């Protein structure tokens, strides 16, 4: 096999990002005094934190509606569930898993409506999904403003009613999963075993789901609707099922994201979160039509690690130099270039990137 075939097999985007990450790590080790163990620990946390959101995209791609840019709809459902449980002062595991369960249920309901909308706009799901994502975040913002909360830790202090911009999870379930079974690596560094296990467990469930009768029917409906029809598969309901699972998992994903972050971010926070999520999946090797669980695992780790590493690295390299302030924006710029560039690249090709 010639080198070009090898590159194709590894995946162009995957190879580039992996090489880039390697360079970042090498530079960090050689040219700076960054704590590499801590850096690695951060990479793992960020991966587990975002992983479920990325995984949530898979059922929608497999069902044939493309990349689910409407995933903020699911996030809003998860945030709503979290707010409800916090308002009733549910703390620890109860608060976390209660929020996950209620969020998934709300997400499934919202996903059902979203799926009906997508059926009406067949062929333009991704574009409509972007609007649904934006619209649901804006709609939720109005809800947050008037949400009848009684817990003073949640109330917007200046207005006296409605929710704050950012809710602090300290004392509720901050890092509940991250610290479960965590292996300390010295200092503040640790391996978030609970978080990673929860994420990889969900990955395993999704993987197994696509090996069941329904999962196969869903894949067939997405891969070739006309084949599916000729095999007696109800294509519409299978496609809808993919959207429902995706939205419900989006809700679960944001709850897990929030517990790891330690804050619940309301209002405009989820507005643009679909894009890095989609980018991570695409970096893993997925395309508009093909997405596997392995793409989720590889893509989330690569993308989040590059982002996690680049910020402290740039700070360490140029921190003392003149004009440093302008350069500290660099990682954010890199994030925008990578995520939007990858999305553009993926949309121009039909096969696996």
């Amino acid at each position, binding site marked *: 096999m010639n080198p070009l075939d090898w590159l194709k097999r590894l995946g162009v985007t995957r190879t580039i990002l992996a090489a880039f990450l390697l360079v970042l790590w090498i530079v960090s080790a050689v040219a700076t005094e960054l704590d590499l163990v801590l850096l690695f620990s951060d990479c793992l946390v960020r991966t587990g934190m975002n992983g479920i959101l990325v995984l949530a995209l898979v059922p929608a791609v497999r069902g044939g509606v493309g990349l689910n840019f409407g995933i903020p709809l699911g996030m809003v459902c998860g945030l709503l569930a979290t707010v409800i449980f916090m308002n009733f002062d549910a703390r620890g595991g109860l608060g976390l898993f209660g929020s996950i369960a209620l969020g998934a249920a709300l997400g499934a309901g919202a996903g059902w409506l979203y799926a009906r909308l997508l059926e009406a706009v067949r062929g333009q799901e991704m574009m409509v999904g972007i609007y649904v994502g934006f619209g649901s975040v804006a709609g939720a913002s109005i809800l947050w403003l008037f949400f009848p909360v009684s817990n003073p830790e949640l109330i917007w202090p200046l207005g006296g009613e409605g929710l704050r911009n950012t809710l602090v999870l300290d004392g509720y379930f901050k890092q509940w999963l991250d610290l479960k079974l965590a292996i300390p690596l010295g200092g503040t560094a640790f391996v978030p075993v609970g978080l990673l296990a929860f994420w990889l467990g969900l990955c395993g469930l999704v993987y197994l789901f696509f090996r069941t009768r*329904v999962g*196969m029917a869903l894949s067939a409906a997405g891969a070739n609707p006309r084949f599916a*029809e000729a095999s007696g598969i109800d294509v519409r309901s299978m496609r809808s099922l993919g959207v429902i699972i995706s939205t419900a998992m989006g809700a679960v994903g944001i709850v897990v994201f929030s517990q790891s972050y330690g804050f619940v971010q309301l209002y405009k926070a989820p507005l643009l979160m679909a894009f890095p999520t989609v980018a991570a999946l695409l970096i893993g090797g997925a395309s508009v039509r093909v997405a596997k669980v392995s793409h989720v695992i590889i893509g989330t780790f690569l993308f989040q690690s590059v982002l996690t590493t680049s910020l402290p690295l740039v700070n360490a390299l140029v921190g003392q130099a003149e004009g440093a302030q302008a350069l500290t924006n660099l990682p954010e710029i890199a994030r925008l270039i990578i995520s939007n560039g990858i999305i553009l690249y993926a949309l121009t090709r039909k096969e696996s990137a």
Partner: protein
Amino acid sequence: MESPTLVLSGIHKSYYGNPVLRGVDLTVRPGEIHALVGENGAGKSTLMNILFGMPVIHETGGFEGTVELGGRAVRLNSPSDAMVEGIGMVHQEFMLLPGFTVAENVKLGREPTRANLFSRVLGPVGKGLRSLDRRKMQDDSRNALDRIGMSLDEMQPIAGMPVGHMQFVEIAREVDKENARLIVFDEPTAVLAESEAAELLATMKSLAAQGIALLFISHRLDEVMEIADGVTVLRDGEVVATLDMQEASVEQIAELMIGRPLPERELPARGAGETQQVALEVRGLEVDMPGEEVRGVDLDVYKGEILGIAGLAGQGKLGIANGLLGLHPVRGAVKLEGAPFVLGETLAALRQGVAFVSEDRRQVGLLLDESIELNIAGTAVHVLGRFLGKSGGPLAMINRAEVRRHAENMIQEFDIRCQGPTQPVRRLSGGNQQKVCLARAFTLDPSLLFVSEPTRGVDVGAKDRVLQQLVRVNREAGTTIVLTSSELAELRQVCDRIAVVFEGRIQGILAPDAPDVEFGLLFAGERSGVSS
């Protein structure tokens, strides 16, 4: 004597090494209506593409032979060359803009214009800004419509017009071209009602009387007999005959169209189980399959037989199987083994033991990027719950080992040439893909199997093997097979009876060894055959 309007001589054309035309000669004189007939795939469209200088011809390496117009050799490298030379075409599917008026459509692209302020100021750059001369557009269109004897209002928009009228607008557009000397009519009556068709034929005659040469492509031999002065019969890319109408008969043309040596028929004998029991009774079947509408089919399929369904493209032969399996809107009364059969429900049909191998292998028949084993087993998993673990229910896991074993058996049984059961079917050749489709259908254990176009896009060697497999399963498992195909020869090779479909109905049913002329007549909708 005046020189002929069109002389094609020695036209050879092949696509990717496949000869499509082999030395075609064709002559059309001024004022003559010359018919061009032949089966699908005989080369009519390719010949027309050459005549119009279509890009597809030049992109595939051009053609050999010469084209003469009015006694002068010409090179037609693009459709606009053909237009300059005065060749026009009335299309089967109308090329009209629905929101524009009749006059605007007639003059489209050739609008008479007048200078205005802007175009004068801008000089040559302003050419495109000249005003339309609406008065002249209307007058010209009126003239053209009068010439073909139509009272149609030239200011009426196309949208909402009956199809018959649209056809006349197309003709008016060709007639309006000042240098029009040859007009091609490509199956112009296919979409028309009978009275409209009669009107059209009369118009064609009057055009010919004005000295324009007409090339008339049609499957309806009675129309050919009625108005043509001469006829050229194409078969497999060759001219088999050019006849003067005075000496031709419908039977003769039909036989020339079909006539091929009868394929050898060496079939294994059947077991004792052969009966005249009806497996499937179809009454008044109507299917809205675009391009293959079925308009009232009555048909009995006998248990254990191989029934062929033949017919030209677009006549509805493909609609029958697609409709019965519920893949397109369908109406009618159908009984399976004497019990009522619910139409329009694919899953129910499959569960009752009716399986289908689609004519559209790549779009409908396969999941191209999935493995061979999944393609073979997938439908049975969904329909019958085969290959599932013990737990049952919708979330039962698929038993991969059992799927693998079954796929390996099928690969051997159907002689699927592959690297193994996990190879994606996209990488297989057409013939092997077809075998995967068959294996998938037989995994459903059908009592009645519809197979459409099983040898389309399949190389010659694999063709025979696919047909042999069908015969084998028919003889060994007693599976009743309904085989739909555009290739009459292969139907005659394996079928017990052959039904010919014309305009969405069964025109007749023949024995496979019936003479060519009878098949030809049924194909052309000439005569109802007798059931054998």
